[in-house]
């Protein structure tokens, strides 16, 4: 018996040692920051395009501050994480990182000094990136303007602030390894998959996460969350009233808006903004892969979309009055608010992307949850300084809690033909109070549209 206990003890010790061995990562020696001349210009340019796919600047640049200098607060369910400085500044950036150190960070989520990185840095996707692409990314980042800027310390509770713990997370959820082609699929599909699942890390926002913040593999692209915004489902659950096609998705990603799907806003605006650098071929590949994930829309969805198209063609901007709008009902109050406050811009008389969308087309109104609708009603779309962008005023100060709830109930029933969101009031309260954090940014992505579809190839 005693032996048994000794055995168990030994086993535990062995595991601990084993885990230690797994968890411990060596530091990689610092280097002298490389000269720009040491990189081939073509490689740098390739890196620039890849960086735009990775949307690096969105997290690693504080709006209005120097590119890639980090310090952006990224709210997570566990606490606030501040993005790192990835300029080649030797003191506070990655200036002393060797290509090997950079490659390891991408492939394994480990800092040059051996610390494990938080999955807020989506290494679970970046691990798929090829060595050549990492080489190009490295070349691009190491030739940026070095900025000395030390990011604030993360605000995380114990034990999450102990980096070692992250090794355990990796052990459970992280599968290391570069992308492997699916021979059964076309080259374009594979290219799309590589970009979407790897550098593009679409799932980081568009896939729901478990209690420990890991993406649920079984709910791949089933809709997630980003900076206080719902990232809509990109699989069969897509809430777009008019099902996305390769062409419409291509146009949406290319221009930052599409006539039947509206304007990219929230964090997605930065994504489409950055994709402006990407060649049409890659955007097309992304569209091909994502549409394959959505599968063919159900017949009733197709029927409804035809219905919507027909109505829009005849009745531009008329205000639908839902059956329930009998006096006294929330929708009856909502319709009045809509007509008085919203219709001016949303009556469809001004075309996308700068006019208000006709809500029949709005995935936000048709979405399973009210969060994005709440965000837009409260905060609107702020103007992008000095760039073309749709502008919508926030109504946080204008509409009372009940008025917003009534309005949402109306929009929901009249335009999506669905019952009011049950959790609207609660979510609204948390969003208003700031308990639930939302980052509000201008729709930058639009600066490129509508002028230059297919700008680069």
């Amino acid at each position: 018996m005693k032996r048994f206990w000794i055995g168990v003890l030994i086993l535990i010790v062995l595991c601990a040692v084993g885990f230690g061995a797994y968890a411990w990562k060596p530091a990689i020696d610092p280097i002298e920051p490389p000269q720009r001349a040491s990189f081939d210009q073509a490689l740098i340019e390739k890196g620039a395009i890849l960086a735009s796919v990775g949307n690096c600047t969105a997290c690693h640049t504080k709006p209005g501050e120097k590119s890639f200098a980090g310090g952006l607060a990224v709210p997570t369910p566990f606490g606030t994480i501040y993005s790192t400085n990835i300029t080649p500044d030797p003191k506070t950036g990655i200036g002393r990182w060797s290509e090997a150190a950079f490659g390891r960070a991408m492939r394994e989520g480990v800092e040059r000094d051996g610390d494990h990185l938080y999955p807020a840095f989506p290494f679970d996707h970046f691990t798929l990136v090829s060595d050549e692409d990492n080489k190009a990314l490295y070349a691009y980042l190491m030739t940026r303007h070095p900025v000395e800027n030390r990011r604030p310390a993360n605000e995380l509770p114990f034990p999450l602030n102990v980096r070692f713990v992250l090794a355990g997370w990796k052990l459970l959820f992280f599968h290391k390894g570069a992308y492997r082609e699916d021979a059964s699929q076309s080259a374009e599909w594979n290219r799309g998959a590589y970009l979407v699942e790897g550098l593009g890390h679409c799932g980081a926002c568009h896939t729901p996460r478990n209690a420990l913040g890991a993406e649920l593999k079984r709910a791949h692209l089933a809709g997630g969350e980003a900076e206080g915004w719902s990232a809509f489902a990109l699989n069969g659950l897509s809430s777009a009233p008019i099902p996305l096609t390769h062409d419409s998705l291509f146009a949406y990603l290319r221009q930052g808006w599409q006539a039947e799907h509206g304007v990219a806003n929230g964090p997605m605006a930065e994504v489409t903004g950055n994709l402006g650098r990407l060649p049409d071929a890659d955007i097309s590949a992304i569209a091909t892969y994502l549409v394959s994930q959505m599968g063919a829309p159900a017949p009733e969805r197709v029927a409804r979309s035809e219905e919507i198209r027909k109505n829009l063609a005849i009745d531009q901007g008329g205000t639908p009055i839902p059956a329930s709008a009998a006096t006294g009902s929330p929708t009856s109050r909502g319709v009045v608010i809509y007509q008085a406050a919203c219709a001016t811009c949303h009556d469809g008389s001004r075309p996308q992307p700068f006019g208000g969308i006709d809500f029949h087309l709005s995935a936000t109104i048709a979405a399973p949850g009210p969060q994005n609708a709440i965000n837009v009603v409260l905060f609107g779309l702020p103007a992008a300084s000095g760039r073309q962008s749709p502008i919508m005023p926030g109504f946080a100060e204008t509409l009372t809690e009940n008025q917003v709830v009534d309005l949402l109930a109306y929009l929901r029933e009249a335009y999506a033909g669905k019952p009011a969101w049950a959790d609207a009031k609660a979510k609204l309260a948390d969003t208003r109070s700031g308990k639930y954090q939302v980052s509000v940014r201008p729709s930058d992505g639009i600066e490129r549209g509508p002028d230059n579809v297919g700008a680069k190839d």
Partner: protein
Amino acid sequence: MNAPNLHLPDVTRRGFLAGAGALVVSFTIPAEAQEGEVPAAPRAQAAKPKLPGSLADTPSLDAWIRIDANGSITVFTGKAELGQGTKTSLRQIAAEELEVEPAAINLITADTALTPNEGYTAGSQTIQNSGTAIRFASAQVRQILIAKASEKLGAPVEALKAEAGSIAGPNGARAGYGELVSADFLHVDAAADTKLKAPGTYHAIGKPFARVDIPAKVTGGDAYVQDMRPPGMVHARVVRPPTYGAKLVDFADVAVKAMPGVIAVVRDGDFLAVVAEHEFQAVKAMRAMAAAAKWQEQPALPDQSNIPAFLEKSVSEVGTVTSVGAESAPGAKTLQAQFTRAYQMHGSIGPSSAVAMLDNGLTTVWTHTQGVYPDRKAIAQMLGVPEEKVRCIHTEGSGCYGHNGADDAAADAALIAQKLPGKPVRVQWMRDQEHLWEPYGPAMLTRASATLDQNGKIVNWHYDLWSNSHGTRPGSAGSLIAGRLMARHFPPDPARMEITPLGNGDRNAIPFYDVPNQRVNWHFVADMPVRVSSLRGLGAYCNVFSIESFMDELALAANADPVEFRLRHLKDPRARKVIEVAAEKFGWSKDPLPEGRGRGFAFAKYKNHAAWLAIALEAEVDRDNGTIRISHVVCAVDCGEAVALDSIVNQTEGGILQSMSWTLYEAVHFDRTRILSPDWSTYPILRFSAVPDSIEVHVVDNPGAPYLGVAEAAQGPTAGAIANAFRNATGKRIHDLPYTRDRVKAVLGV
């Protein structure tokens, strides 16, 4: 100010006529006098006026100044307050020579029934023309009063002096101005030799006086034509075609007529408007009408992505702006460059508005036009009535920065008012109407070529510019939108190339630098598919941008410091002075700046005969997101004697920030059929986040020196300084305005 109400300010026409004889006579003004952005006929330019300022055109003193028996002083100016502080500066000038406090002066601005015809309030000429006239007239009036007092008091003129509204003589003898007046006593012509007060003795000029219009503006007082609410006023809205030339093919007004509050639906050819009791009823009716109207459109616009091609192929004539010295000169190095500028907007924050009333045959229009007389002429022609049957009263609007929608809104109101006699009709344009229909600042193409000798001196300079006219102001009825749209379809005035010292597209096309051999040509484009006219600075904005960018390239080629290189080519002492002051206060140096930061310098003498202005600034360029952030700006300006120092600083700060907005962001977007910039999201302008940390304006004062226009002097140099700072920061030059983020990224690459 002309109080925005239906009763005339202080003075009535009758009372005025009684007070001062054959006033009307002094109102007959030669057309050439209508100075402004409409080029006067060359011969008028040639003839030098004997009398100073606008006295040359309106010599009779009583056209400018009236003193009542109660001693109250009224000064008349044909110029208008456009937010530049005129109402204050002109009071200061009159008060100076009349020896009273500015507050004691009652000032009447542009009103065709009361004030002299001073053409347009434009080209930064208010102080230069009207100010000079009022200064001399006031001085002469003071002398007349002294002469009268010497009779009354029986004291010799030498023993008398004017002070605080009366003439004081030996041992306490006094005669108030009021006691000295008699009918017509000022109906005399101005004398050319009137002596002005010496700078040392000033009590008003150059002293800090708070602007008289600001208190009302910050407390919700009646300040703008938009604020007029005469009894019985009705609200009108116009419905414009979707494109310039569109024709109304189908319109059923029945439904609209039945809408609540609708008083009238006006249709005259392609001109549509609706009048209602409440403003929002008019807005709703306008929307309904817009939905009901069916238009036929033609693609008639040039390709926005290739404006130079359009300009080059549309040249109708080529004019010589200057040609001195030899065609070419031998030298060490020759440089060439091409620059462009997009169509840009005035973008007044308050869309144009006007109130008009037809009252037994007389149509009175309250308008924020820059030229009440020319506007009256055009409106009268449009209405088919004699000019006396129209009266235009300037009433302030939002800042206009040139020829915006003001005259057109006035015409709209006048036309609609004809349908509702006796009712004051208020027209308020919507934002998209201002954005889509105002006449833009024309797109331009310029090419420069210059040769440097061994010692880095410019020996030869060739400069060519391609541009529409920058002056399509009224003009005839065809210069008004309503005139063009109405059934009579008045044709637009034919565009003429006018090369005058005043300058138009060619304003500041001649470098102010000392260069022995110069050739400057204007390749004039008469065809105006995009509606254009005068935007603050006219051609000077793009010409100075081009010249100052090019000067920096030449300095580099001569490896000289940009400031030193400019001084090298300037003998003019006042030019050297502003450059030295700007450089010194900025702390101009060659010391390297951190990567991505750069210094830029630029200079111009506005129109080559107005204010001298030099500017230095520092900018930071983020090559990854393409943003240019201007951190601090230092400017030095010399506009002669500084009447109202703070006004000069205010307007110059404003010019710098506005030009910064044009230069970094602004371009009107359009496809082949429609203008695509109907609002601020499609035509973004400067917001607070991009405003520099500091702007310093140093005024180089020259007491006693003639007044020189200043309001537009900063537009060109600011663009040049930004361009040069960008070059200095990145080693690359952008030749095309505006410096958008996409352009910056494209030029810098990765």
